[in-house]
């Protein structure tokens, strides 16, 4: 015998604590050697009116449900219910988290966008239904079952391999050992064996309690640690897991540097040099000035395409405040009026004398550098576009003060009608 087996004897003993306890008849195990004889016997047992009995087979034998009179399980309904629950939970979860509790707009999709919720809804439906199917099967079968008197029967082990059995419990009102044995021998049984069990409830082996308690306690440690760190404060710096991401070997803008001039990491351009494309010598073009005066007139020729460009850029950058006609009624201005918070400086109308009289250079200057609460737009709008906007502002002003003389002669007649 294997020496290990000796050491493991305690295990068998742990299971055999009740071996000497008083025994009683639990049932009768009958063995068959083929599914056909089993099926025949099942029909006979069913017809004889037994109620507490079962067949034991190593694989699902077709036709046995009918032969034993087993009714359809409710498992499909449980799975259906669970699937619908999963579906509802999935939609509820997505609507609540992304639509209500944390509304966050992404890629132009609605907050509650049903098509995008379908994949998760489908997965949770399947997950709930599948788990319910599996655990429902176990629960309906009263599994897991730690012990059953059959496990002690000598003929039982082969019934999960290559033999078939019928087990009639002693609890059955029709149970009569002699009669049953006679019946089965006639039906072609290859063996009959009484199964005994301990009277009363078997005590739980001590080991199971110990192992269970230890596992439960161990399982409580991680959540306890999480709760602790969630509700405690620490003055230590956080752990830097990725060292070279947190501490990068480079100098940041405006940080000190020991070797460079002025002791700064950022350096100035060499004196007397200008970067390519940044000469900007033309005062009219780049500053709208001639000497100390704002210039009247444009640095470029005014064509239709310039005005179209101006119109587009105006609509993007200016119209939100000044409005599409330039009277100062853009959506932002209107909202500010509605809120009436008192901190708002109304945008200037372009059709006031103040702006009408300004030189083109000054309007350009305003766009470039801002005025009052209007911020400078030099960073957003190209120089040429700024001039195009100025040209469009002039066109807007003209449009609001137009006379019949501005209309081409051939269209005047149509207007007169």
């Amino acid at each position, binding site marked *: 015998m294997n020496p290990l087996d000796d050491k493991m004897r305690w295990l068998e003993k742990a299971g055999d604590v009740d071996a000497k306890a008083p025994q009683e008849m639990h049932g009768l195990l009958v063995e068959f050697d083929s599914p056909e004889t089993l099926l025949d016997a099942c029909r006979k047992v069913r017809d004889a009116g037994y109620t507490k009995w079962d067949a034991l087979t190593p694989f699902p034998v077709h036709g046995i449900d009918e032969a034993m009179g087993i009714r359809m399980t409710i498992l499909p309904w449980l799975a259906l219910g669970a699937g619908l629950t999963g579906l509802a939970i999935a939609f509820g979860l997505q609507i609540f988290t992304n639509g209500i509790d944390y509304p966050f707009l992404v890629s132009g999709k609605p907050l509650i966008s049903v098509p995008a919720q379908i994949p998760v809804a489908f997965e949770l439906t399947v997950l709930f*239904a599948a788990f319910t199917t599996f655990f429902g099967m176990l629960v309906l079968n009263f599994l897991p079952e730690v012990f059953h008197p059959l496990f002690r029967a000598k003929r039982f082990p082969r019934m999960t391999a290559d033999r078939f059995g019928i087990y009639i419990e002693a609890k059955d009102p029709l149970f009569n050992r002699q009669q049953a044995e006679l019946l089965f021998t006639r039906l072609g049984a290859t063996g009959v064996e009484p199964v005994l069990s301990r009277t009363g409830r078997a005590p739980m082996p001590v080991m199971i309690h110990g192992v269970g308690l230890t596992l439960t306690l161990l399982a409580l440690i991680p959540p306890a640690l999480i709760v602790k760190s969630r509700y405690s404060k620490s003055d230590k710096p956080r752990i830097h897991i990725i060292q070279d991401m947190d501490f990068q070997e480079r100098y940041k803008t405006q940080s000190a540097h020991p070797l460079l001039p002025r002791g700064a990491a950022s350096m100035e351009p060499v004196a007397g040099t200008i970067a390519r494309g940044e000469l900007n010598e033309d005062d009219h073009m780049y500053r709208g000035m001639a000497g100390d005066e704002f210039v009247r007139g444009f640095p470029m020729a005014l064509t239709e395409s310039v005005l179209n460009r101006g119109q587009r850029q105006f609509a993007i950058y200016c119209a939100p405040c000044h409005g599409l006609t330039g009277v100062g009624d853009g959506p932002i201005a209107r909202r500010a009026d509605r809120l009436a918070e008192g901190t708002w400086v109304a945008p200037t109308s372009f059709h006031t004398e103040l702006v009408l009289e300004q030189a083109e250079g000054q309007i350009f200057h305003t766009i470039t550098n801002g005025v009052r609460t209007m911020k400078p737009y030099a960073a957003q709008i190209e120089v040429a576009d700024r001039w195009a906007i100025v040209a469009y502002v002039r066109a807007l002003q003209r449009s609001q003060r137009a006379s019949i003389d501005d209309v081409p002669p051939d269209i005047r007649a149509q207007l007169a009608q």
Partner: protein
Amino acid sequence: MVTITQRVATLDNTSDDPRQRQPLILGNNDYTSITEKVCGVVEDPKVKKAWLIAFLIAVSLTGMLFALVGYLIVTGVGVWGNQIPVAWGWPIVNFVFWVGIGHAGTLISAILYLFRQNWRTSINRFAEAMTIFAVVCAGLFPGIHVGRAWLAYWLFPIPNQMLMWPQFRSPLLWDVFAVGTYASVSTVFWYMGMIPDLATIRDRAKHPLRRMLYGVLAMGWRGSARHWHRYERAYLLLAGLATPLVLSVHTIVSFDFAVSQLPGWHTTIFPPYFVAGAIFSGFAMVVTLAIPARAFFGMKDIITIRHLENMNKIILATGMMVGYAYAMEFFVAWYSGNEFEQFAFINRATGPYAWAYWIMVSCNVISPQIFWFKKARTSIPIMLVIAIFVNIGMWFERFVITISTLNRDFLPSSWGYFRPTLVDLGMLVGSFGLFFTLFLLFLRFLPMIAMAEVKSILPRPNGHGEAH
């Protein structure tokens, strides 16, 4: 009885005579011998040398994988070759590859079950095991791809310290749910299928510890017909649920690519095309694993040439489907009149990754064509070579899709060329190590053939056999 089984033993079961269905199990097998054979592998006290060597190699590769993962986490994702514009590189390729491998297991256990393909019983157990181990390998890559892997729990809808919720309109989050559901449902399905076989091993066990361990796993199963009734209903329900599930998983993986607006990724055939490709690669992997396993463990009469031939037919069919998708993509790219779309495909076939594209086409579309010939379908060396080709080809398919679209940005100034680093290569090899470690452990300690199911299709001596 003797005469029947003897005739069966000498029969070539790959014949296609329509007058009679061929037996699925050869040899003089009956309930007893199937039990002996399958349980014998698990009960063998001696460790076979070949198994041990394979296991040691696999374990050391797994060790390398985890060492590299540790290195990656401590250093950052810069150790990979991923670099703008190819931000989704090797790890995503590996993820899609491994998820795809998994699909064949579910297909065999669920879809073929619904289609009453009884030949699946010989191979479903280890195909399902393969599914689970492949999903384990797959799950690793997105987990470490997020960079700060310890914050991966932000993916789950649990209240976190930022008071934020995950973004349910993102396909990457759908992936979390799809792969998570797939992994757990496949595990349940696999485990449930094993319960009766675990009970068989428990009841044969001589050693009390062994009896207790398998007893815990078998959960007190005793083969009651009343239990079997609910068990079979549950199996049918799980098969019905797993079938759309397996389709959804690779569909959602394809959404990762296809809901974007990138040429080469955004095309409506992606969902069924990915599913077909997944089944294709998965069956190739099953064939690759089945050939050595049946030879080594002496299962040639349970996993017969007929089983392999059937799988080769499915490889041929799904290979044609994948070829159809390649062709449709190309045609519609031209037909769309969209120059970016057109460029993306011309670039695939002639650009810097043309070599990968042509490896993909020759392995996936051309090489399985040999299976039109019955000689090739039933020849072990040929099918082994083709199955390995298909595995390679399907890895390259994901490589081509991911890389060849990303390496050509809309702005030519942003174009780049992806090169894997040694860490990339090491992780791919290491993931195979992890897969084989788990698989070898499974072969040794769990019943690799679904005994109960195989027994239910054995021809009954004096009844009507169900072998069709």
